[in-house]
């Protein structure tokens, strides 16, 4: 046991100097020199919800880690969805490291299932400022880090159908939200019965996004002191803006068109089939169809005309890793977590999975920015450095908060209530839950 501890200390020290450009070689791989007896290998369980190819990539990384040192052996288990994770952790049979969706960190942390990492970060000297802040902030619960992102997804672009733009005579993608609405009008066609046959933009396609839109308007959901801010002007404006599309094209008409326009990632995909002109762009969508030679153009998502400082805003949703509070080998898990956050591993994972690394310096690494096979990702790597990235705050009531936002936004989009009424209703409903959580 002492030997393992010594190894860990060494790893921690190495992790601390990882700024020098060397990946944090974790696990105490350093030859302990001299006549040490063979170490007892600690096996840690790493659960992830991945399947198929992505799971195999993660297995490969764990394999590399296992061969790189002889103190820790990581065993990965894929296809462990949040439901299974929840059952295992609450049943007292927690794995040592878990990969999960970021919005589980809040409720699970508040419930005491997730290890607070502040202590480990301090003793190992891990530099948290090397991580993209918008991704890292999602891992904070009550201001304390309870996990780390391994990669992140980002929506901050506008995807558009190039051919439709050409046909409508639109020379360049809209830069402001006002231009977006104009372009949408030009791209929308109706038949003589008033049925929409093609549409420029649907603000709640592919779903009601109650995080993305307020970010575009510079909004927030909590003031950091426990007061919910969903009903402030920026948030309300973002709902009203979305509603303006419904006002323009008609509730019934949009609903009817939507039901028949086809679903994303099917042969009837509306933005590929020319039924939908523009949509919010994610880094993980249409990788093969976007860019110079593809059917889809990519542009920064428009900003409000009167607030140019909000240019390059975007929503970040990281994939989270955490150590369960009841993990048997928390130290070893932390060592492996640092390995996953080292530059080489971050680049390898991002390259193989085609995702965005969370390590800031990886964004400028030529292995990513000069890798032709990642060309469609380049503009996402570049914009991942934007200061205007944000996400939803994590808390124990996060899922109730998000649900309430969806419900009220839906009514506002359909014109059953004003945007202000909708957001006031959300705050009235969720503020008591926030107060209750604060008291604990």
């Amino acid at each position, binding site marked *: 046991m002492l030997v393992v501890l010594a190894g860990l200390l060494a790893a921690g020290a190495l992790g601390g100097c990882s700024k020098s450009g060397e990946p944090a070689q974790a696990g105490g791989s350093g030859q302990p020199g001299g006549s040490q007896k063979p170490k007892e290998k600690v096996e840690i369980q790493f659960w992830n919800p991945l399947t198929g190819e992505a799971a195999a990539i993660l297995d490969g990384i764990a394999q590399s880690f296992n061969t790189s040192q002889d103190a820790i052996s990581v065993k990965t288990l894929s296809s462990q969805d949040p*439901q299974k994770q*929840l059952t295992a*952790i*609450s049943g007292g049979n927690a794995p040592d490291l878990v990969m999960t969706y970021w919005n589980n960190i809040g*409720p*699970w942390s*508040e*419930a*005491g*299932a997730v290890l607070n990492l502040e202590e480990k970060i301090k003793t190992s000297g891990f530099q948290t400022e090397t991580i993209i802040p918008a991704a890292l902030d999602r891992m904070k619960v009550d201001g304390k880090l309870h996990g780390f992102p391994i990669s992140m997804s980002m929506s901050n672009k506008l995807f558009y159908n190039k051919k439709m733009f050409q046909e409508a005579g639109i020379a360049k993608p809209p830069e402001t939200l006002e231009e977006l609405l104009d372009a949408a009008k030009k791209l929308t066609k109706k038949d003589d019965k008033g049925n929409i046959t093609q549409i420029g933009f649907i603000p709640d*396609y*592919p*779903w*009601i996004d109650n995080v993305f839109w307020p970010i575009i308007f510079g909004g927030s959901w909590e003031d950091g002191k426990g007061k919910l801010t969903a009903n402030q002007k920026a948030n309300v404006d973002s709902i009203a803006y979305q509603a303006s599309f419904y006002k323009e094209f008609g509730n*019934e008409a949009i*609903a*009817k*068109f*939507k*039901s*028949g*326009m086809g*679903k*994303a990632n099917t042969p009837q995909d509306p933005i590929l089939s020319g039924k939908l002109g523009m949509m919010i762009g994610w880094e993980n969508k249409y990788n093969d169809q976007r860019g110079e030679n593809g059917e889809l153009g990519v542009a920064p998502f428009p900003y409000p005309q009167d607030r140019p400082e909000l240019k390059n805003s975007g929503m970040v949703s990281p994939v989270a890793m955490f150590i369960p509070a009841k993990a048997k080998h928390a130290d070893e898990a932390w060592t492996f977590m640092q390995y996953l956050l080292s530059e080489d591993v971050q680049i390898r994972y991002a390259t193989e999975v085609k995702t965005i690394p969370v390590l800031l310096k990886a964004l400028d690494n030529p292995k990513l920015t000069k890798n032709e096979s990642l060309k469609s990702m380049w503009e996402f790597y570049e914009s991942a450095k934007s200061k205007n990235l944000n996400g939803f705050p994590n808390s*124990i*009531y996060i*899922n*109730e908060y998000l*649900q309430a936002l*969806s*419900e009220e936004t*839906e*009514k506002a989009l*359909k014109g059953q209530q004003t945007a202000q009424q909708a957001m006031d209703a959300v705050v009235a409903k969720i503020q008591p839950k926030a107060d209750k959580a604060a008291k604990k």
Partner: protein
Amino acid sequence: MNAGNQIGIRRRERKRLLVGLLFISPWLAGLLLFQLYPILSSFYYSLTEYSLFTPPEWVGAANYKELFDDPKVWLSLYNTLFMTIFGLFPHLAFALAIALLLNRNVKGQSIYRTIYFLPTLVPIVAATLLWMWLLNAQYGLINELAGRIGLPQPNWLLDPKWTKPALVLMGFWGTGTATIMYLAALQEVPRMYYEAAEIDGANAWQKFRQITLPAISPMTLFQVIMGIIGTLQLFTQGYVFAEGNGQAIGGPENSLLFYGVYLYQTAFSFLRMGYASAMAWLLFAVVFALTILVFKTSAKWVYYGGDR
């Protein structure tokens, strides 16, 4: 009879009882461990605040009080009872109609019976996804047909007024089990009643009304009760309908937020196990009350062929 003999019987009976209990002990253990214990502990949890990870905190009747102030509980109960009332009874009537047809002596009878039962074998999720295509407002076959005969063409999947009727419509497809059970009941009706009625000059409707319906009423009672319990637990169809449309869990304007769906969300998304347990007990009370109600009224409309 003398006292000694009686004691002997009692001893023998007790032994028989013990042996019997021993034989059913695997089932008994299962019942106690996997049914009774969870049921009772869920009642305890319903009186606590419990997030799964930390020990439950006693809150008394607070969860039950909150149930009555939670508009979503009422909305989900309404959605669910809508399906019970407007779904179950039409479905049963349809199943009976099909069973009557299948009971006729025609060529290829068994082939028809198989065909009508087949859809029941399709997994609910697959059937639901299939029906979402049929119900598609623009290209769906159903609206295509409705348009040809001049009926309105509602937006089945996205208009909150039509999502539940869409599910009811879809439900007709899955009535195979009810049909088969009705068919079995129909074949139990003694021929002699019909013969007697024919001699008396009864027409087809009179025979159906006076003989068939009363004779199969125990089966109807059974199906109504099982149907009520089943529809009150409705989950999959509503969940898939909403998911498949990329909507929040309750579908358009929560029109598909069934009680089971809301319960699931409360427990596993909001992590409020205590409140969810209270919801489960409310559901139990509702099912219990409705079942009692049906039983009470059944004296008036259910006829047993036996001694009663």
